[in-house]
C-alpha cells in the first residue's frame, strides 16, 4: 500500500526477441536503478544469444545447420548439446509425448528453448539481489522473490478460447508454462500420429524450472488429461492444470488457485 520506493512499482521492460516479445518486471528492492538496468541488458543478451543459436527460422543458426546436416553436434556450441540432452531427458520423462525429434523438418527444441532461455534470463536478474523478478516469454512465465510488498505472484491463466479473458488465477513461486492447440496452431504435433494435437484446449504446468515446465506443458497438451500423471510424477514438485476441449477443468493438488472472491476489491 505504500506509495514510496521500497515496495514500489516494478521496472518494466519488453524485449522483442525469439519471434515474440519477452517482458520483464523487476522489483529492485534495495538495488539501485542502474544496477537493475544493467542486469536487464544482460538478461536480454541471454535471450538474443539463445535466439541466435536455436532459431529454426534463421538458416545459418546452429540448430538450423544441425537440422539440415550442414553441421554435426560436435561442431556446434556446447549449449546445443546441453539443450538436446534436456530434450531427450524430457522425451523419456513424458513417455514420448514431448518429442522434438518428431517435428517436421528435423529436431526442433522450440517447445523447450523459450522457457529455457527465459529461465536463464531470470536467474541472471535474480543473482543481482533484486527483491522480485518476473520474466514472461509470451505466456511462459517464471518468477523469483516477491512482487514488491505482495506475498506472492498471481498469474492469470489465459482462457483458451475467449481472447483477453482468464480461465483462472493461480499463485506462483517459480515457473508457469501453458501450452494449447489454440496457441501455436498446427505447431503442436502429436508425435504418435504426426498430426496437430486435439483434445486439450489448454495445459498449464507449474514447478521450479521453466524449461522443464515448458516441455511438460507441451507434452500435456498433446497427451491429454492422462498426462497429469507424468507431470506430478516428475521430481521436484510439478503440478498440472488442464482445460479440455469441452471446457472441463482438471488440476493436481499443488495448483494454488486464487479464489475469485480474493481477486476482487469490492467496490463500495
Amino acid at each position, binding site marked *: 500500500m505504500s506509495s514510496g520506493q521500497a515496495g514500489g512499482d516494478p521496472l*518494466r521492460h*519488453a524485449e*522483442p526477441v525469439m*519471434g*515474440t*516479445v519477452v*517482458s520483464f*518486471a523487476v522489483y529492485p528492492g534495495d538495488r539501485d536503478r542502474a544496477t537493475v538496468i544493467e542486469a536487464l541488458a544482460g538478461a536480454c543478451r541471454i535471450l538474443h544469444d539463445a535466439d541466435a543459436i536455436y532459431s529454426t*527460422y*534463421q538458416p545459418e543458426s546452429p540448430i538450423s545447420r544441425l537440422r539440415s546436416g550442414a553441421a554435426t553436434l560436435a561442431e556446434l556450441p556446447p549449449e546445443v548439446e546441453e539443450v538436446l540432452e534436456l530434450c531427450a531427458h524430457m522425451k523419456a520423462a513424458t513417455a514420448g509425448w514431448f518429442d522434438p525429434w518428431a517435428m517436421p523438418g528435423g529436431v526442433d527444441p522450440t517447445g523447450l528453448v523459450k522457457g529455457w532461455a527465459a529461465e536463464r534470463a531470470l536467474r541472471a536478474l535474480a543473482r543481482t539481489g533484486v527483491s522480485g523478478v*518476473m520474466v*514472461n516469454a*509470451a*505466456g*511462459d*512465465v517464471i*518468477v523469483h522473490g516477491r*512482487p514488491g510488498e*505482495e506475498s506472492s*505472484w*498471481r*498469474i*492469470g*491463466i*489465459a*482462457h*483458451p478460447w*475467449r*481472447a*483477453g*479473458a*482468464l*480461465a*483462472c*488465477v493461480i499463485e506462483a513461486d517459480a515457473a*508457469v*508454462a*501453458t501450452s*494449447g492447440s*489454440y*496457441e*501455436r*496452431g498446427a*505447431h503442436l504435433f502429436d508425435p504418435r500420429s504426426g498430426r496437430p494435437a486435439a483434445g486439450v484446449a*489448454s495445459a*498449464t504446468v507449474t514447478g521450479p524450472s521453466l524449461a522443464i515446465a515448458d516441455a511438460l506443458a507441451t507434452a500435456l497438451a498433446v497427451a491429454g488429461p492422462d498426462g497429469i500423471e507424468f507431470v506430478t510424477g516428475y521430481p521436484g514438485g510439478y503440478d498440472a492444470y488442464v482445460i479440455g476441449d469441452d471446457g472441463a*477443468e482438471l488440476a493436481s493438488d499443488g495448483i494454488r*488457485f486464487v*479464489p*475469485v*472472491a480474493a*481477486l*476482487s*476489491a*469490492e*467496490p463500495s
Partner: protein
Amino acid sequence: MLPVGSARASTDRQHHKSAVGGSAPPASAAGGSTTGGASSPGPSAPLVEVRRTAVGALENYGYGILSVRVTVLGSRIESVAVQRLQTAEQYSQQLAAQAIPMLHSEVLSAQSAQINGISGASYTSQAYALSLQSALDRLHVA
C-alpha cells in the same frame, strides 16, 4: 522467419505510402475497418531495388499495444523492429475485468483483480505477426 498469416491484406490498403517513416500512427487496428472499395493496386513492384519502410497497424497483445516497423529492399525484408510498444500499466486490471468465472461457478464481479502476469496466450507473437503483415501490405510485399 515468422508465422505471418495472410489475413488483413485488405485492411490498410489506402495507407500504403503515408505510413512510411517514423511517427505517423496508423489507423486504429481494433476496428478492422475495411476502407475504400476496390481501389486499383498501388505502385507495381519497382524494377530497381528500392529501400522502403512502413509501420504496421497497432495491435493489442494483451499487455499493451505494439506495432512493427519493416524495411524492405525490393521485395526482400531487410529489417523488422518493434516501432511502438506500450506496456499498459493497468493491463492487469483491464484483463481481470474480463476474467471469466471459474472453479465452482464463482462469479468475478470486481474490476480490480491484482495479477502480476498471464500465462498462456501468445498474444505478443500474434500481434507481432499481424502488425508485420499489415506493414508488408502497405508496401505491397508478400
